[in-house]
């Protein structure tokens, strides 16, 4: 930082000021640096991806990304992510509700704990969950002997890992909306004779619905990302081809065979999925912002 002090205002400052992006100094330096950094670290490397994939030609690309083993990994991703997101929305909403509305002992600890999946390195979460749900683990043994349910090294295990990863997204999306909910709304409804369950379904639920959907989408996107995220899932997945093999592992397998173009092709498809989801999330968040703006 300090070494840059030399070119503070810079000789070209007056010229920039005439173009007038603003009156404060430092536009050229900060913008130039940020753009250069982004280009070198992100833009140029990402361009390499479709370029490399294009070496396969259209037919080769299509065959690579629609190979049965690859398609099985996509549908595993979507199925497990969807189930995990549904479970997270239900329980995440309950957790958010309890944290906002009720007083109980250890509440601030519970609140802090919700962020754990953000902070815990994915590989650590991965091995911990695997050890927990393996057939000799604390929960795995119990589930297998009582319910006959195998968790580790099956799609169920992947779903569990995704629940772990996605939970904070739902809680942290719904929580502020619940906090902003005006008490007057509920008071008005009560004075008009509504019962408590009426108020919950007719007043509170519609208000937090956009937040719930955003939380769902974030948890879903994160789950898809988390399969890309790899660390939390790869251990518990077991990686049986066609059954519990996740997409990024296919990329790594292709890399190890020096099939760079094939790896890039699958990576392109993963990127496309995440862009579509990002778009959906942005639309949902816009909807949520408009809704809360109108209510305020």
């Amino acid at each position: 930082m300090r070494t840059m002090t030399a070119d503070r205002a810079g000789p070209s400052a007056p010229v920039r000021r005439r173009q007038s992006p603003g009156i404060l100094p430092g536009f050229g330096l900060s913008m130039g640096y940020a753009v250069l950094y982004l280009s070198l670290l992100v833009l140029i490397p990402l361009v390499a991806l479709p370029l490399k994939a294009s070496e396969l030609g259209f037919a080769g690309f299509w065959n690579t990304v629609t190979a049965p083993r690859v398609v099985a990994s996509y549908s595993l991703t979507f199925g497990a992510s969807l189930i995990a997101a549904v479970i997270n929305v239900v329980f995440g909403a309950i957790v958010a509700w309890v944290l906002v509305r009720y007083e109980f002992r250890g509440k601030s600890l519970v609140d802090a704990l919700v962020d754990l999946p953000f902070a815990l390195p994915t590989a650590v979460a991965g091995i911990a969950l695997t050890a927990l749900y393996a057939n000799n683990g604390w929960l795995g043994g119990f589930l297998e002997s009582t319910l006959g349910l195998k968790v580790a090294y099956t799609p169920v295990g992947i779903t569990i890992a995704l629940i772990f990863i996605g939970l904070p997204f739902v809680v942290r999306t719904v929580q502020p909306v619940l906090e902003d909910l005006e008490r007057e709304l509920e008071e008005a409804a009560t004075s008009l004779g509504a019962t408590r369950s009426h108020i919950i379904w007719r007043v509170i639920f519609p208000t937090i619905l956009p937040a719930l959907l955003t939380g769902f989408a974030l948890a879903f996107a994160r789950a898809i990302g988390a399969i890309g995220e790899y660390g939390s899932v790869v251990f518990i997945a077991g990686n049986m081809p066609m059954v519990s093999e996740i997409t990024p592992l296919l990329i790594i397998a292709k890399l190890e065979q020096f099939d760079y173009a094939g790896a890039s092709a699958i990576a392109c498809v993963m990127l496309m999925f995440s862009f579509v989801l990002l778009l959906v999330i942005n639309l949902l968040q816009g909807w949520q912002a408009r809704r809360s703006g109108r209510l305020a």
Partner: protein
Amino acid sequence: MSASSPRPAHLTEAPVVRALLIGIAVVFLAIFLVMPLVLVFAEAFRKGWALYLEAIVEPDALSAIRLTLMVAAISLPVNIVFGLAAAWAITRFRFRGKQFFITLIDLPFSVSPVVAGLVFVLLFGSQGWFGPWLQSNDIKIVYAVPGVIIATLFVTFPFIARELIPLMQAQGAEEEHAALTLGASGWQIFWRVTLPNIKWGLLYGAILANARAMGEFGAVAVVSGGVRGLTNTMTLHTEILYNEYMFSASFAVASLLALLALLTLAAKRVVAWRHAHHTRQSLDVQPQPQPRIAAAAV
């Protein structure tokens, strides 16, 4: 958080329902969050302190710890400089393509780390674009320490910028404009006006970026090549030990990372609280009720 003040009976649920919901929430969190965390420490210490310490002071583990600390020490200042530059440009000036610029900053959140690792192999690997040139000049990037650093930079650079952009947008540029009118130079404005105003936000972002830098796995796994004692970070060392069925040693290293996560959570709490306090005092505006999830999102 006005909502947490006690509510009159007609505005809340029956005690039974309340107890039931609290019960469900606590049990759910206990099973899905607490148990994995407890398990890490339980497994790490299962064979006693002596073996725990042995697993951590063993040369490969020590070199993994050193590499992780080094990567964090390099990526943090680089990320801080980028975050400040990007936030300054975006929040203090008008220019075309600003939205595109912001989207670009968000990009690593939607790119799988494995894909991030892959692009650097495509560029710098032996069969990559720059591979032959690097080889003839005897420079190793992929499957060596520089690759680990570059991949970490890729996955961590948005954290600080994403904390600072909304904060500086909310604060506005009035104070900087006032300083400019009073004759302050650009760097004087930055050090005396801007930085004191954003220090808590900056620290918050730095904590998140640091946690991610030390805990990154996917991207680093692709570019590191996992050479023991050379390019292994703590997460990779954990993985290798785990795959070799050396569970206690693996969880011992993992417990250090889990401890880091707990420290991160605690520091985040303190900083978010100070930040809210500071914002309320200096700007007299409502602080954001919750630490934004933006930084970690997708």
